[in-house]
């Protein structure tokens, strides 16, 4: 026993005295502890794993045709949150180094508090990540079944999906408004305005236009009002032009309507006078009743007036019809103008401003969301595992004997930090 211990610490080829044919010499297989070999091999596979994920992201991101990958701002990624998370992880790397150093020199309490600090920093990281995930969820930027809210292009599929989702939302909101009417009225009004002033208008515009450029502009301006991706002067101009045009049209229609209404009023007045006259004539005639109870036949003026009455009635009816058809023409224009004044000034778009979570156009948005959640999710999973390991270590006596375990855990944690060091610029800054 004693000699073995000696040979461990002080290997000397001096075993001939034992009488063995082959001298037993203790030699370490590796210049490092087996645990460290294991953790480094594990980290090598981890490097491969994350290289594959990050490599996929790079290929997708830079392989996307010019300008079709969303910028961080377009998908609501907040740069300073990413920078803060980077700082948190760097701090946690520092604290785990201190924890290891303390354990190595047998400062047990200090090691434990540094380890606790590391674990808390890991939790802070996860908390910030959770805030970010929640904001993604609340904006509808995530993969979902059967259909994502993000569309690659502003086309009729987008409009029809938007329309059906909006109808669903309106139905939900109507059911809700039966329970608490006061709160829901404004929301419901807004949804109706979106339906008539934006969706129906765009559908009609695209359906009736033969000009592909006009169709495209109509669809793009619709998508822009829902979720603007960048400054689009062409769309601003298009909307402003449409607004002035529609205002003129509305003015024309309103004057026409006023004209028709005054025509209707005169016709109704004529009708009133005519029927008065007819009644007068009739009563005059009826006063001339003879002994047998017979009236004289209606005279020439009365018959004339009756014919006049009939034609005026016809006229009034046609005027009413044209007024109602005018109203049908006027109504969508008025709704569109209402929508213009309600939604044109929103800088962040309808979805963001009213928290509507309706379908929007973000080119490559689905690919972005898939890669974002996959990569950051796997990284967050590694953070979670690290925190679990810290939790298992905390109750132990972190003395010199456990320094090696501490070192291996530290190596793992530093690796998690390194992965984030690469993720931060690629996801938040590119």
């Amino acid at each position, binding site marked *: 026993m004693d000699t073995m211990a000696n040979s461990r610490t002080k290997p000397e080829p001096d075993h001939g005295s034992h009488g063995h044919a082959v001298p037993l010499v203790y030699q370490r297989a*590796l*210049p*490092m*502890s087996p645990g*460290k070999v294991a953790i480094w*091999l594990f980290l*090598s596979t981890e*490097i*491969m794993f994350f*290289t594959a994920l*990050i*490599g996929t992201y*790079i*290929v997708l991101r*830079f*392989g*996307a*045709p*010019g*300008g*079709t990958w969303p*910028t961080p701002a*377009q998908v609501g990624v907040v*740069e*300073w949150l990413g*920078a803060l998370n*980077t*700082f948190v992880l*760097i701090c946690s*790397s*520092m604290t785990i*180094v201190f924890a290891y*150093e303390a354990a*190595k020199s047998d400062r047990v309490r200090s090691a434990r508090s540094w380890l606790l600090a590391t674990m808390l920093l890991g939790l802070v990281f996860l908390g910030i990540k959770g805030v970010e995930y929640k904001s993604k969820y609340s904006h509808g930027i995530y993969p979902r079944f059967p259909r994502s809210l993000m569309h*690659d292009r*502003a086309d009729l599929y987008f409009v029809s999906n938007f329309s059906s989702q909006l109808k669903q939302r309106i139905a939900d909101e109507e059911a809700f408004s039966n329970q608490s009417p006061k709160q829901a009225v404004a929301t419901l009004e807004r949804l109706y305005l979106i339906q008539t002033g934006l969706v129906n208008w765009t559908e009609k515009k695209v359906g009736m236009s033969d*000009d592909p*450029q006009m169709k*495209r*502009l109509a669809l*793009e301006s619709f998508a822009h009002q829902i979720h603007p991706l*960048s400054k689009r002067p*062409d769309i601003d*101009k*298009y909307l402003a*032009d449409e607004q002035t*045009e529609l205002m*003129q049209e509305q003015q024309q229609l309103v004057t026409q309507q006023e004209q028709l209404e005054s025509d209707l009023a005169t016709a109704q007045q004529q009708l009133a006078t005519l029927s008065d006259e007819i009644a007068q004539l009739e009563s005059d005639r009826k006063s001339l009743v003879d002994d047998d109870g017979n009236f004289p036949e209606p005279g020439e003026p009365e018959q004339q007036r009756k014919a006049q009455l009939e034609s005026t009635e016809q006229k009034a009816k046609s005027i009413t019809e044209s007024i109602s058809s005018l109203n049908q023409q006027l109504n969508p224009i008025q709704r569109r103008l209402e929508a213009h004044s309600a939604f044109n000034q929103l800088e962040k778009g309808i979805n963001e401003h009213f928290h509507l979570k309706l379908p929007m156009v973000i*080119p*490559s948005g689905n690919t972005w969301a898939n890669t974002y959640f996959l990569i950051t999710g796997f990284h967050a999973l590694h953070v979670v595992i690290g925190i679990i390991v810290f939790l298992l270590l905390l109750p132990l006596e972190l003395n010199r004997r456990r320094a090696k375990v501490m070192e291996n855990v*530290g*190596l793992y944690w530093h690796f998690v*930090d*390194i992965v984030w*060091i690469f993720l*931060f*610029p*690629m996801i938040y*800054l*590119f």
Partner: protein
Amino acid sequence: MQTDAPSQSSPTSQHRVFLVVFGLLVVLTGLSFWIANSAIMENRILGWSVMIGISICKAMLVVAFFMHLWWERAWKYALTIPTLFMGCMLVLLLVPDIGMRTDHYPRSRQRLSPESITVPNAPGYNEPQPKSSPSQGSKT
């Protein structure tokens, strides 16, 4: 223990090294944040390259000092070089066929891709403006 631990430097000097590395990491993070919001990003390729360069520096600092590879023996090369080689190759091999696949996109393929959002020279981006404004002008 003796073989794993740094032998040349005393604990206090090592402590100072850790603090310096920590400071450098924070400064480099701030630097890449600054670059992302500076005029350098007008040349996007340059900005990206610089930011990735900064990330590589940060990773090297962490690996060398926090993960003690600076003080380790030669086994570190046997482990890190093949891994890094394979990691880099995996990405680089994908670049010509996949990463650069859209550099010379025919128009027929471009129509199938998601619509362009930021690059003004992408096909179909500038076309609506000159054509639509006269048609609108004629209408009003």
